[in-house]
């Protein structure tokens, strides 16, 4: 209980600003990748795949990206966007750790584990 009070308000503000910045970078990176994919798609008019097919496994997406297929790049952008909330959870674990709030380090780690579990479940 007393441990959390040792962290000053300024330190917390600092941590919150860092979290904000990391999130913004995450959003910018994923938006940029999505835009590159979309531009290639519009300019070439090709998805890189036949019909309405789109890649949805890591392997297909990876090989698609190396061949600069627009759908594959777009899927990478979406995947990065999906990771931004996960990134937020990871940064929160760090900020609770900085506050010496071990109870919330455990709680937030559990949330991260559920997210990782859902990841493998999906595959």
């Amino acid at each position, binding site marked *: *209980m007393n441990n*959390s009070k040792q962290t000053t308000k300024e330190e917390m*503000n600092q941590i*919150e*600003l860092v*979290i*904000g910045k990391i*999130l*913004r970078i*995450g*959003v910018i990176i994923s*938006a940029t990748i*999505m*835009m590159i*994919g*979309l531009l290639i*798609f*519009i300019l070439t*008019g090709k*998805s890189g795949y036949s019909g*309405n097919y*789109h890649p*949805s*496994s890591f392997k297909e997406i990876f090989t698609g990206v190396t061949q600069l297929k627009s*759908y594959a790049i*777009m*899927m990478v*952008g*979406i*995947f990065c*966007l*999906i*990771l*931004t*909330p*996960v990134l*937020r*959870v990871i940064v*929160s674990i760090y*900020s*609770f750790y900085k506050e010496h*709030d071990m*109870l*919330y380090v455990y*709680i*937030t780690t*559990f*949330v991260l584990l*559920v*997210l990782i*579990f*859902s*990841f493998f*479940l*999906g*595959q």
Partner: protein
Amino acid sequence: MIGTVLLMIVIGIFAGIAGAILGLGGGIIVTPILTLACNLDIKYAIGASVVVVIATSSGSTIAYLKDEVLNLRVAMFLEIATTIGAVSGALLTGILKPQYLYILFGLLLLFSSFNMIRKLLNKNSSNLSHKNDPLAEKLRLNSSYYDKAENKKIDYQVENIPGGLSVMFGAGLASGLLGIGSGAFKVIAMDTFMKMPLKPSSATSNLMMGVTAAASATVYFFNGSILPYIAVPLALGILVGATLGSRIMQRLPARWIRICFVPVLFYIGLNMLIKGF
């Protein structure tokens, strides 16, 4: 295909603006447009909507974090319930018939419009808790925030955590099933059940929506429900729209926007219900 892309960007911008002004995740706006107006299979509409929810949440939480309104402890503690709910919901969509999804979605829209009416009717009622809940104390959920409108720091206490947790599980389940953020449920769990003030409730709900959606998004991603030519332009449009919307919001009286929006929400809800039966 290019036409679809442009249309999706426009829908995204519109949903982003409307979502930011009304305090709804973009999902509840995008799914009916995609299914009713664009005739897209509800499975793909839901996949796109999950991506939209994440874009809305990640975009707007940046602003809230600086405002220090949101309660990170409440968010992460309740995320235990919403993420588990979301994973179960996403898995259930593979089993559930699409018509049930339409019915569920229709009911949810009707519920949201009633909820908006409720908010319009008692806008000044404050029912803050002054109870010392031992569980809240143990979990250190009580906090304070700075209210810009009232120009003062407001301390608040949290109660009825089991009640909040169960509503949150339901919110997670709905968001996994329907690809929405279920912000309305989340705000109700916090402000009605746990007696948190409205501003930290909605800020916290916004952060939670993204994390909850991420829990079901990978399931949709790998099972092929996320169509790139739909989801990408939508997400980009949403990012632009949400930024515009949060600026417009500061100039417009939210009350009047809500009054105009309630019948629209109600109408769409009925349409979804009809499509389900």
